[in-house]
């Protein structure tokens, strides 16, 4: 195991040992001391991992808003927590802290006054920012726009819960919880650091993939039970699309497993750390396939047919409002987050710092930092796709999945097998340095060559290279099929 200055699991274990020895160990059930300590440790680790994920999810949402705004030449969300104590346009909520009993609101009032001094409406920074039309008002450490998502989530809590009259009430109520529960279960096996994982079991990747592919079932439930034609179409689309993309996903993950020789996620990361090469330099094709398939799995543009805003109003969650929609919204981003973390773990060496062996003192940075940084870096690509690409049609997305991604993933699996069997140096247990260099350079050249897809002859003749739909007679009502 890589040593980490945050040795979270051992710290928790020692603390829980202390607790249980001083409680259970004193009593006459002293023989249960270890099991109680173990249970408490696992519970605490689950809570901490999930808490870390949920808090950093806000960062993800914030990044999406800001980056999308920048791509679109806008400013993105700008709401800051300042509006809590500075009201809207000078209208404040009064000194509400005086209503708190026992004078407990006095420190809050003093804090508010101090914050008004620093970042209030009448502060010179505020005035300057307004004049200069700055992207944030006031001071930077209030993280403008960061709390917008918090406000959205809290607003969902207060919305009325509506169930359509003709809907299948029980399935309608169960579907969101099915989706969010399975999404949260994914994070049981995703480590955030060498000693910062809630569960480190063999076959963890298998369980991960199994749980990851349950949520589409909830999506189909939601679409069907809403008794709405748009949601029904959305549910059917998502079922078809996700079945088409599960198989390439599993085969791609299998190639990584073959390369690393273990079904255990922690061991996959450790293998990358020990053998000295990240998988992305050995399986570039696998990395591309993984991110493309994951974009389809989490239903983002260009593969967001189930909630295609243009033709199906809001897709399969048209009928959902209030907190249940908020849960679905959160689970969408949690799945995206899981995809980013998995990419970081599978291909970017997980928690290993870049050039960890060469750069001195870099291991003093806690490894959890690298995990999050890598995951957020991958999320930038997700936002980039959404800003730059269009939405593909249903038949096109299925055709793409079956005719391109599946064969490519099989090719990738074969490559991984060959590499593991022939190129891997089992004696020194590391990759000969020539292999990643060769593979990376070759694939880079291939990428550059393939990205030049201009067909001057077709452009000159103005033929239609992408006419995927053949129409016999072009007269209204005549051209069917």
């Amino acid at each position, binding site marked *: 195991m890589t040593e980490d200055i945050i040795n979270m699991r051992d710290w928790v274990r020692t603390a829980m040992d202390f607790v249980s020895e001083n409680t259970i160990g004193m009593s006459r059930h002293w023989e249960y001391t270890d099991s109680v300590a173990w249970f408490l440790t696992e519970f605490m680790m689950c809570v901490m991992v999930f808490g870390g994920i949920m808090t950093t999810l806000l960062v993800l949402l914030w990044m999406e808003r800001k980056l*999308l705004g920048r*791509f*679109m*030449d*806008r400013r993105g969300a700008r709401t800051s927590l300042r509006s809590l104590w500075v009201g809207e346009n000078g209208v404040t909520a009064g000194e509400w802290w005086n209503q708190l009993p026992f004078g407990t609101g006095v420190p809050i009032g003093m804090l508010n006054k101090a914050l008004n001094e620093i970042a209030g409406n009448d502060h010179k920074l505020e005035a300057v920012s307004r004049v200069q039309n700055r992207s944030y008002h006031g001071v930077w450490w209030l993280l403008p726009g960061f709390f917008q998502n918090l406000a959205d989530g809290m607003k969902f809590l207060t919305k009325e819960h509506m169930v359509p009259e003709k809907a299948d009430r029980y399935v309608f109520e169960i579907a969101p919880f099915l989706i969010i529960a399975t999404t949260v279960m994914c994070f049981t096996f995703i480590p955030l650091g060498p000693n910062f994982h809630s569960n480190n079991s063999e076959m963890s990747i298998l369980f991960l993939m199994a749980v990851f592919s349950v949520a589409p079932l909830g999506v189909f439930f939601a679409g069907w039970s809403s008794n709405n*034609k*748009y949601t029904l*179409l959305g549910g*059917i689309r998502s079922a078809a699309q996700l079945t088409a993309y599960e198989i390439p996903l599993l085969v791609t993950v299998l190639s990584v497993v073959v390369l690393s020789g273990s079904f255990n996620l922690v061991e996959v990361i450790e293998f990358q750390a020990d053998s000295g090469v990240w998988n992305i330099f050995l399986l570039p094709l696998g990395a591309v396939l993984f991110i493309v398939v994951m974009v389809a799995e989490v239903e983002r*543009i*260009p593969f*967001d*047919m189930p909630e*295609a*805003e*243009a*033709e*199906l*109003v809001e897709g399969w969650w048209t009928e959902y409002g209030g907190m249940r929609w908020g849960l679905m919204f959160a689970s969408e981003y949690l799945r995206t987050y899981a995809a980013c973390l998995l990419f970081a773990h599978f291909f970017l060496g997980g928690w290993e710092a870049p050039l960890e062996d060469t750069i001195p003192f870099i291991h003093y940075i806690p490894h959890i930092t690298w995990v999050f940084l890598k995951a957020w870096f991958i999320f930038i690509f997700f936002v980039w796709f959404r*800003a*730059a*690409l*269009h*939405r*593909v*049609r*249903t*038949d*096109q997305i299925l055709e793409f999945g079956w005719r391109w991604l599946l064969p490519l993933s099989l090719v990738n699996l074969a490559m991984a097998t060959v590499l593991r069997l022939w190129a891997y140096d089992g004696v020194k247990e590391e990759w000969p340095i020539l292999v990643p260099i060769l593979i990376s350079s070759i694939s880079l050249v291939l990428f550059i060559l393939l990205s030049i*897809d201009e067909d001057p002859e077709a452009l000159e003749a*103005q*033929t*239609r*290279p*992408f*006419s*995927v*739909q*053949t*129409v016999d007679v*072009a*007269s*209204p*009502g005549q*051209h*069917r*099929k």
Partner: protein
Amino acid sequence: MAEMWISMGPQHPMTHGLWTLKVKIDGETVVDTEPDLGYIHRGVEKICEARDFTQIIPYCDRLCYASANTWSHAYIYAAEDLLEVEVPERAEYIRMVAVELQRIASHLMWLGAYCPDVGNLTGMVWCLREREMMMDLMQELGGSRMHYNFPRVGGVKRDLPIGFAMRCRAKLKLFLDRIQEYEALLDESTIFLVRTQGVGYAKAEEMINHGVSGPNVRAAGHNYDVRWAHPYSVYDELDWEPSVERPSIKGSDCYDRYRVRVEEMRQSALMILDGLDKMPGGSETYHEPGDPAILAKAPARAAEGQTGHHHFEDSRGESMFYLAGGGEGRGKHPYRVSIRSPMFITIPYAAKCMIGYKIADIPAIMGSFDPCIGETDR
């Protein structure tokens, strides 16, 4: 899956406005369509019978919210045909500038509404960004942001403001560069080509027979344009050619209709740059409002039984006003105002055009015909 009717609208992202498209689908395939209009029918034709010839102009501005100037000018030419008015040369040039600016803004609004139809929000926001420039220029002319009330019977309300020509040239040159950004975003994107090419085929002759005209016909490979077929302004003195697209063998698809509008934006920008140079009296001089150089003396009353009509190249097709003036003792008001709206005729054709394609093609095809419900319902 069995066939079922889906009612898209009145509140639906696909309908750029307020109408209902009833679609009969079999699985993902469209089997039958039925448009249902009239959700914002305001009875403009009836209201205009109680207004005099100048009071009608604001209503014509509000006919189509995406292109206000073209509609008010369409009415103005018909009213001048009714009242037998000669318009000074300079006023014609100023009108041409206003109309072409509005055409650019309208096509930008179309492109901005078309990008989310094929699933991209960035293009929409970029197009709205450039539309703001055009609206600023027209705001200098008309004084308002969207509805300008600019033309008058016999001329225009105001002369070009001082420095307008310089600002207009600068912004149009910037805009001509920005068009390449859109082409980089859309034409370079394989997904956009896959979505727009090969869907929504329409042929020129049947479109003309169905009453569809304007850019949709020019996309089908014939350069018919009211601006040279029934000329009405100073277009003979500018050097321009109606932008025509080379369609595929089966007819023009959504991609052609997108290309021809982009070309029209370029064409209009060059047309304005040319007109500002050729403007009589120079584009820098300023005449006071009411000056005979920009506003001719026009009679306020129409003769007995006089009628006037005028075909106008709107940004969506051939629009037309038919004014029946006179009637006993009410020569100040038109007796009957009849408005020919291109989209009112085009929407049924577009609805028929999408039969046989997928559900995801409905926004792509309907958006490519550039529907505008304000003029459709009147």
